[in-house]
Structures are given as structure tokens and as C-alpha cells.
């Protein structure tokens, strides 16, 4: 008996581990499936339904194959920070982390003190290898972070408000005092973009090759850097703002305004796509999660709010100040204010809690925080220079060579540039939900109910009208003829909308008929021409 039970327990154990593995595989497969399958019930074309059903099956098979191959394809592991005992993660200081970590990683955090040339802005290239540094007083430098080499350093002798890389590290754009300029990696000025005006912030839309800028007069400019065409130029109408961020998921520009509003823009519409009232005071910082469903905003009302971008509603509100915010590839949120940087982490269900904290020297004012892609490093640009600190678990450990390659060779870079230009997306394709392209259209609501249905509706309305009870009038006003007339009027009122609809369906309105008829030649210029 005992032996049998043991065997049964063993079987159950085996099955539970197998189940765990299959659950894990299911989770991974769901990641690769990219959402739910198409709803094929709404299709009436049987052949198309069959073809799409076969395709859906293929998708699930390929998702399973990708989930299985994941084990072998990922050479690097994620970073982590696990405190022991009563220790909490935010109590851990950078020095203790640097002690514990290997040699290569201990060289990554640094402090570059550049006190004279003003608050510094920094940006990392999308591969995480190159960093662009711009000081307010005109100091520009580009560094290779792998070998800690300075590629180019020069002075432009003008106020520099923002720096941004273009499609690769060969070109970068600088928001100078009067206009944005585009420079080569050798520091040669290539273009002066005069149409933009005095820019406050620049952002580059990767796949569309669009450089967006917001200027002193609150005008938003989009320029295609591959052809040089100015795609759009809009007056936001909401006052000067220097809070601008591009949403990496759908390439929509989010601007934060001094009235507490956050507006989202696309290059093909004069009005913003979305306007949200986020804060009771000016918005100080905006950050977008790379998955496209989270937005973090901070305002002068000492609140940091997390928004769900599907429903455009608040998920969470925290109290705190933020001068600058950034999301990492793994979803960690870095918040910089004063001389402190805090990193928050998602503890499940979009509830963010404090993960790490770093205090710089008291006088430093943090201007910009930016996570380095594919590394566990956070770059901080402040009033006395540049620093970088280690944040374990913030970067994506495994890169894809064809998406962003930190170990790119010249040939690979050139090929990538050509392919990116061939696959350049048109500015008209920017939309709030880019995954809707090519999906099965939801079933159309019945435009006109069938005759039977309208008849039934009319009958029910007439019956309801017939069953209305009227107030009994006194003093000789309650004549039966008058009662009958009132009842008939009610029934006619109930029928009237249906009859009108019928008439409109059968015969077009007189105005339309006149238009269709031949107008005399003298009056033809007044005919309503259809807009094509």
C-alpha cells in the first residue's frame, strides 16, 4: 500500500514539474503570439475563413517554436539585486554594488565633473554604445562607451538646449540658441534647420526618419531628415513648453504644457490626437514605457501619475517631485529631482515601488536621466557634468543583431542604414494603435434594420402609445370626442418617425432631386460639386 502510494506520489510530482514547464512555455508562447487571434466568426466568406484559420494555426506553431528556441538563443542573463535579511534594496549604495560586481561592470559607473560649461544633457544611441553629451554653454562631445573613448569634442559657442542622435551615431542634431543644427560625427556642421526656429527640445522618430522639435513659440515642427522635407509645422496654441517625449511604441509625440495638459501629436493632423488634463499645475516631465501602454507624468503639484494609454485613465498616483523621468527597457522608472535619483520598479499589476535611490553631491541639479539600452546603467546629466550609476535589472540582456547591435562593424552599419531607408515608414502611417494594420475588421453594425424589424418596432411603439392613460379632466373638459382625438394624436406621434424614415428611403429629399436635375448653363457654376 505504502509502495503504491509512493509510486503515485512520484507520478504526481513528475506531472507537476511537467505542468510547470508547460505553463512556462505557455507564458513564453503568449509573449510571442502578440495578442489574441482574429475573430473569424464574423467572416461570411468561407474560403477566406479557411485560409485565415490555417494561418492562425501557423502563427501559434511559430510562437511555440520561438518559445522553445528562447532557451538556446539567449547568451546573457538578466541583472538582479537581492537583499539579504532585513536589508532593503533602496538602502544599497552604489559603492557596495561596485564592490560586489565584476571588473568590467565596475568600470561602467563614473562621474565626470565639468563645472564650468553648464547643465548637461545626454543621450545614448539606440544600441547603447555611443553617448552624446551637450552642455548648456556649448560643449558637445560624443563618446564610445564600450572603450570609453572620446570620439569627438568641440565647442559651438552658443546655448545648447538639447542633443539627439539621428538614425545612427554618424549624425546628431543639436538644439542651439537660434536654430537646430545637424552635425557629422567629425563635428562638421552639415545642416542648419532654419525653419524650426529657436528649439527647446528635439526628438527623433527612428522608423520614420523624422526630426521633431518644439520651439520657443510652442510650434511643433516635423522634418524628414532623409529627404529634407518639412512634413508638418503646427502651432500647439498652449504656450511655451520644453517637455516633449516620443512614444516609442507608436511614434506619437507627447507634449506637457503649463496648464497641466498633456497633448499627443501626429504629423498629419492640425489638432492633437489626444488632450489629457493630467495635473493641477504645469507638467514637469513625461515618460513613455516602451510597451506602449504606460505613461508617467509629473507635475508641479507634487504628484507623479501613471496613466494607462489604452483607456487614458489614471492607474496610480504617487506624491513626489520629478524634474526628469525615464523608463528602462525592463520597465524600471527613474525619477530625478534636485540632487537625488530614485528608481522605481513594478511589483506586479502596475504598482510601482521604490527600488533604488542615489543621492549626488548636495549642490548638483539633475537635468536629465537616461537609461542606457542593453546595459544596467543609468546616465545622469546634471549641472556639474555627467555621472552614471549601476541599476541591476534595468537593461535588456540579449540584443538582436538586426535590431540594435552594440558590436556593429562598419559594413553592418552601412547595410542597416540602407535597409532602414528602404523600410522608412511614411508620416501618414503614424497612429495611436499601430498593431491594427492588417487585422480583421470588426463586424459592421447593421446600418439599416430590415423591413420586418422596423415594422415590429412601429407596432410596439403604437401599442405603447395606445396604452397611455390620460389625466381625467374635470369641469366639462372630459368629452369623449376630445379623448379619442388625443389618443389618435399620440398614436400618430409614435408612428411619425417611422413613416418619415420610410419616405426618406423611398424618395430622396427634394433638394437632392433638384441638384440631380440639369441646371441651365448659366447656373451651373452654382451647382454643389462633390468633393472628390
Amino acid at each position: 500500500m505504502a509502495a503504491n502510494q509512493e509510486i503515485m506520489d512520484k507520478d504526481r510530482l513528475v506531472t507537476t514539474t511537467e505542468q510547470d514547464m508547460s505553463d512556462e512555455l505557455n507564458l513564453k508562447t503568449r509573449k510571442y503570439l502578440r495578442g489574441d487571434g482574429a475573430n473569424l466568426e464574423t467572416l461570411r466568406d468561407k474560403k477566406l475563413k479557411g485560409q485565415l484559420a490555417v494561418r492562425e494555426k501557423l502563427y501559434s506553431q511559430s510562437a511555440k517554436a520561438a518559445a522553445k528556441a528562447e532557451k538556446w538563443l539567449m547568451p546573457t542573463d538578466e541583472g538582479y539585486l537581492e537583499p539579504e535579511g532585513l536589508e532593503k534594496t533602496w538602502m544599497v549604495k552604489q559603492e557596495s554594488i561596485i564592490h560586489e560586481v565584476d571588473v568590467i561592470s565596475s568600470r561602467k559607473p563614473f562621474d565626470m565633473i565639468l563645472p564650468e560649461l553648464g547643465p548637461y544633457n545626454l543621450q545614448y544611441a539606440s544600441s547603447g554604445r555611443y553617448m552624446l553629451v551637450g552642455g548648456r554653454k556649448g560643449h558637445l562631445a560624443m563618446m564610445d562607451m564600450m572603450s570609453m573613448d572620446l570620439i569627438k569634442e568641440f565647442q559651438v559657442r552658443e546655448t545648447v538646449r538639447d542633443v539627439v542622435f539621428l538614425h545612427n551615431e554618424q549624425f546628431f542634431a543639436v538644439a542651439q540658441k537660434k536654430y537646430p543644427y545637424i552635425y557629422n560625427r567629425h563635428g562638421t556642421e552639415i545642416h542648419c534647420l532654419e525653419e524650426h526656429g529657436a528649439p527647446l527640445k528635439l526628438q527623433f522618430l527612428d522608423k520614420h526618419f523624422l526630426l521633431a522639435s518644439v520651439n520657443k513659440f510652442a510650434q511643433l515642427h516635423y522634418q524628414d531628415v532623409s529627404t529634407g522635407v518639412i512634413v508638418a509645422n503646427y502651432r500647439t496654441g498652449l504656450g511655451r513648453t520644453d517637455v516633449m517625449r516620443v512614444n516609442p511604441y507608436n511614434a506619437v509625440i507627447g507634449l506637457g504644457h503649463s496648464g497641466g495638459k498633456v497633448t499627443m501629436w501626429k504629423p498629419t493632423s492640425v489638432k492633437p490626437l489626444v488632450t489629457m488634463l493630467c495635473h493641477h499645475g504645469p507638467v514637469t516631465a513625461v515618460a513613455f514605457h516602451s510597451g506602449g501602454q504606460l505613461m508617467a507624468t509629473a507635475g508641479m503639484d507634487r504628484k507623479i501619475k501613471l496613466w494607462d494609454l489604452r483607456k487614458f485613465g489614471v492607474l496610480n498616483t504617487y506624491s513626489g517631485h520629478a524634474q526628469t523621468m525615464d523608463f528602462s527597457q525592463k520597465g524600471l522608472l527613474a525619477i530625478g529631482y534636485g540632487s537625488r535619483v530614485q528608481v522605481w520598479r513594478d511589483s506586479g499589476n502596475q504598482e510601482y515601488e521604490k527600488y533604488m535611490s542615489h543621492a549626488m553631491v548636495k549642490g548638483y541639479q539633475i537635468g536629465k536621466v537616461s537609461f542606457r539600452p542593453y546595459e544596467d546603467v543609468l546616465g545622469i546629466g546634471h549641472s556639474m557634468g555627467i555621472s552614471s550609476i549601476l541599476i541591476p535589472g534595468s537593461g535588456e540582456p540579449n540584443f538582436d543583431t538586426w535590431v540594435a547591435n552594440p558590436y556593429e562593424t562598419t559594413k553592418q552599419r552601412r547595410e542597416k542604414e540602407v535597409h532602414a531607408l528602404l523600410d522608412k515608414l511614411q508620416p501618414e502611417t503614424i497612429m495611436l494603435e499601430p498593431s491594427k494594420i492588417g487585422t480583421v475588421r470588426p463586424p459592421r453594425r447593421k446600418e439599416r434594420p430590415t423591413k420586418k424589424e422596423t415594422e415590429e418596432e412601429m407596432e410596439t411603439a403604437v401599442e405603447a402609445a395606445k396604452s397611455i392613460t390620460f389625466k381625467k379632466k374635470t369641469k366639462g373638459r372630459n368629452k369623449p370626442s376630445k379623448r379619442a382625438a388625443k389618443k389618435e394624436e399620440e398614436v400618430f406621434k409614435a408612428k411619425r418617425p417611422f413613416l418619415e424614415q420610410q419616405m426618406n428611403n423611398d424618395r430622396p429629399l427634394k433638394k437632392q432631386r433638384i441638384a440631380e436635375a440639369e441646371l441651365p448653363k448659366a447656373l451651373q457654376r452654382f451647382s454643389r460639386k462633390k468633393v472628390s
Partner: protein
Amino acid sequence: MKVKVISRSTEEFTRERSQDLQKVFRNYDPKLRTHEKAVEYTRALNAAKLEKIFARPFIGAMDGHIDAVSCMAKNPNHLKGIFSGSMDGDIRLWDIATRKTVCQFPGHQGAVRGLTSSTDGEMLISCGTDCTVRLWKVPLLKMMDSRESDEDYSKPLAVYVWKHAFWAVDHQWDGPLFATAGSQVDIWDHNRSEPINTFEWGKDTVISVRFNPGEPDVIATSASDRSITLYDLRMSSPVRKLIMRTKTNAICWNPMEPMNFTAANEDCSCYSYDTRKLDEAKVVHKDHVSAVMDIDYSPTGREFVTGSYDRTVRIFPYNGDHSREIYHTKRMQRVFCVRYSCDGSYLISGSDDTNLRLWKAKSSEQMGVLLPRERKKQEYLDAVKERYKHLPEVKRIVRHRHLPKPIYKAAALRRTMIEAENKRDQKRRAHSAPGSMPVQPFRKRRIIKEDE
């Protein structure tokens, strides 16, 4: 506390020697890829445009005949050769690669109506309106250098004279027999000068005959009484007869699904039937504007080519009701015969203007040996076009074909006529008692009856 930070060593991620290949790392996580669908859509659009730029289907014409080309035959053992017979009795063997005549088989006094090749490819059988069936020996095209061979190919191996003119001939796929069509269906053996068997159902001329690729004893024939008849050689009587509203000019069996065949009809459409269920057509392929003269299936069984009296050649998918491709030239007149090459990449059409024309089956395909990367890229582009072909911009480009004006106008006219007829039927149905005018599915509409 336990800490780990991402640290990559350069040696692990870069190649050791310059002779090595570059190291490639993949992470298929969708989070790393934004705008996937938009990029795919852009690629589909560009691929559709490029396909139209590279679409050059016409390769060349083979001229030599002095009268209209009436029939063609493929050699099953030799990809490069094709036989063609013309209305003045001239039979030629062409080398497709050089587009030149290899050999001529003179002898027929009247039009050559049917050509077929035996199973082993050694013998060519031809029949004509001069009531003769001639058997010829086929030269092996490999020995092109030794032009002076000891055999004279222009003398037939055998000439069998019979009582009536012949309209078509076809050889069994896996046996020694061949069938001719004339006033009745005759079954012959190579060595006998008289048919060994005869089939007849009704007194009308049989226009075309085809053996089934899967069942070597089943024949499909079409006659001028608008019928399609199926015979089995093992039985002494015909099996099934299907009468339609209009005459069928040619029939072809699907080589991959031998129970299905497609009939090219005079009413500008092709009807695909399943032999097991002949009361309803499987698919009606409608796109021609004039009678369809000939039909041939691709060896893959997935598409077939039709040549029609309206001077165009169309390629249809086996289960699709509209053509995927149309080929036309100003110089090509009425197309009397078409053949798909045995490797599925070329079409040959023989027409009224005495020329045979060679076309590509996929108009933008790069012929020749492709590097594996080129092939993969082409497959990817085809797949991405397939995925987005329903979207309006891509659909507009993929569907666009230039039609010659007479065909465009004729198609528009046909459409209005069909629409008018449909509207009239609808109105009649609306004004008559419900159920008195049953709706007949289109696939059944052209069939009158089925007989056993």
C-alpha cells in the same frame, strides 16, 4: 546581498579572426521591435511595386510554321522539347532554349488535329483531318552535335488509315494504348493498324479526349452535343455523361488530384468538376470574354493555363474563380493551344498567327540559378505580399493588369449583360410567389442533366 549586472565580454560577441563569419545574436521578443506591422506593410507595398517593375513575362516567339498552330504536345522525358502541329500538316519539334526547330515531321495532307507523345517519350503520335494516324520516332535532343544521325526522323514509323477524320488524340499515362477522337472514340495499340476498341454514345463528333493521370483506364471526352462523357476501358460501355448548355472545347485532368478535371467551355468560362459528383461544378472560372480553346494544368496541380479565342492567355488558380494573370500581345491572334512546361515555370501558347510563344509562368520571376539569399528574400517578399494583399493600396497594385481595349470593353459589356440578367431574375423572383422560382447555385446553372 546578491548582485548581478549585465556584463558582456567583447570576445564572446565579436569574431576571433577576420576569416570567421560575423557573429549574429537573435532575440525574437516582440518588445524589441516597434512598428512591426507598419514595416511589413511598407515592405509589402514596395515588393508589389517592384514586382510590377520586373514583370516581363514574354520570353520569345518560335516562328517557322506557315499556317495556324492547331495542337501541341509535351515530351514527358525531355523538358526542353515541344511538338507542334499546324493547319497545313506540318509537325515540328522545337528546342525551347534556343527557340529553333530541331526536326520536322512532314507527311500529313490536311490539318494536324492532335499530337501526343508516348509514355516513354520515344514515339510521337499525330492524327489529322486526312483520316490518318501517324507514328513517328522522336530524336533524342541530347545528341545535338551529331546532326547527321543514321536515322531519318522525317519518315513515320507507321501510318494507319481509318474511316473518318480525327479531332484529337491522347496517350495513356501508364500503358501502351492511345485513344483518338473523331466520329467516335477509338482505342488503338501501337502495333495494330486498326483500333482495338470503339466507344460511342450518341451520333455526334467527339472533339477532345484525355486520359486520367491517376487511373490509366479512365478517359474524359467532350463532344459537339455539348456533353462531357467519361469512359472506362475495362468496361464495354461509357460510364457517365454530363450535358451542359454549351460545347466544351478541351478538358484537362488535375495531375495532383486525378479525380478532378477542368473543362474549357464555349461560354467563356472553365468548369472544374469532381468525377464523383458530377451534378455540380466545383468551381466556375470566369474571366475570359470569348470561347476558351485550350487548357493545361501545371505539374504542381495548383494552377492551370487557358488560351482563348479572345487573343489572351490566362492563368487561373485551381480553386479560384478569377485569373491571377493575363498575357496578351498585339501580335498574338486567336490562341488555339496552350501548354504548361513540365517544370512548371514556362507556358507555351500556339496561336492563329503561326507562332508559338514562350512565356514565364510567374511574370516577375528571376529565371536561372538563384543564390540561397536571393531565394530567401524572394520567398519573404512573396509571403509578406500574401499577408497584406487584402489592404487597399497593396491590392490595387497587385491586381492591376493592362488589358487591350477590345477586351476591356468586351468584359465591361459582359458584366452589364450579366448584371441585367441577374436584376431581371431578382425582380421576377420578388414578384412571384415565394418558392416558385428556386435559386439555382451558379455552379449548377450551366448543367442540363447528368446521365448514367
